[in-house]
């Protein structure tokens, strides 16, 4: 493992504990590693950032639909983890806590920018308005017409997911793209497993109907 993330940032360890600098042991759970962060272990925080950086970015991108915003929000998640390290109690799974922070941030961002977002119109000739990127990876094997159809399809997927009610949207992103099971999603959203089953069924049912023409 690399040097501690915090030491690279020029941040001294709080305790100067012996464990600082040592890589977290293989057998430790994330909650135990977080307890080492609490004890001042810099490399433990680095480990968690590296482990969850991509999942957080992926979650935030699908919630915020914008690469720059997703990165900003994912960084904010890690900052909040770092800020809360001293009060952290390993009473729940680390991922539950992490996704709860992420969900709250994503929901707050969506609410704050509700009126700023442009209508979900998609130009097929220009790069995506939100990310500044073209919507699909260039694929030489596709003809121009096929590429247009593909972009249309991607735009529809994004739009239909975005239009889902808040909790359904979070549940779908967690279930479909973060590979979280009912129990994990239920813990993050503080709902029962049966409520999550029902929530997800309704969400996928909506998507099935609305995306039928693209299937």
């Amino acid at each position, binding site marked *: 493992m690399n040097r501690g*993330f*915090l030491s*690279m*940032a*020029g*941040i001294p360890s709080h305790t100067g504990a012996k464990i600082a600098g040592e890589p977290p042991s293989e057998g430790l759970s994330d909650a135990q590693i977080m307890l080492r962060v609490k004890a001042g272990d810099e490399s433990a925080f680095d480990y968690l*950032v590296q482990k969850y*950086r*991509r999942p957080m*970015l*992926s979650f935030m*991108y*699908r919630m915020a639909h914008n*690469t720059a915003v997703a*990165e900003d929000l*994912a*960084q904010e998640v*890690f*900052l909040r983890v*770092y*800020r809360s390290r001293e009060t952290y109690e390993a009473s729940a799974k680390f991922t539950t806590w992490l996704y709860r922070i992420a969900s709250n941030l994503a929901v707050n961002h969506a609410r704050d920018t509700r009126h700023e977002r442009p209508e979900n119109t998609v130009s097929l000739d220009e790069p995506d308005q939100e*990310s500044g*990127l073209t919507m699909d*990876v260039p694929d030489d094997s596709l003809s121009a017409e096929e590429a247009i159809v*593909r972009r249309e*399809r*991607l735009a529809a*997927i*994004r739009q239909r*997911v975005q239009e889902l009610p808040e909790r359904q949207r979070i549940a779908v992103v967690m*279930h*479909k*793209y973060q*590979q979280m*099971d*009912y129990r994990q999603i239920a813990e993050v959203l503080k709902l029962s497993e049966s409520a999550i*089953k*029902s929530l*997800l*069924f309704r969400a*996928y049912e909506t*998507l*099935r109907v609305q*995306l*039928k023409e*693209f*299937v």
Partner: protein
Amino acid sequence: MKCNDVCELMPELAAGLDAVTPEVNEHLESCAGCAGKLKEFRQTMALLDEWQVPEPSPYFDVRLRARLREETAKQPHGLWYWIRKPALAVSLAVLMVMSITLFRTDAGRNSAPEGPRALMVAEPGTAVGDLQALDKNNELYSDFELLDDLQVQKDVDANP
């Protein structure tokens, strides 16, 4: 197994996160509606797979480090932060108890006439010295009055 039970399982079955059990399979073979719906769910799931996430920016770590640096630099810990520290909280509590105890003891001493301040004598001729002299005179006058009263009482006793 009923249609509602199978419907609840469809997201997991369509996502491939759950295996089709013999009971579910039996229901699907006998229920064209559920079988058709599961097929469409699977197609929807496959469609959703097309939505890929762009690669993270190579500057993600650099920016995060910078934000962490800012975070620690601007952390002038508030009063609540320090109060939450157990050792400091106990020290503050002990200090408060000692202060209150000392204050009370000191107040008790001050109320006694033989307190340190009562022994202080100012130089005659100064304002404080004059005031102290007046105080002493007052005591003398009251003593004289008492002696007068005693004399009167003696006179009364002597002349019934």
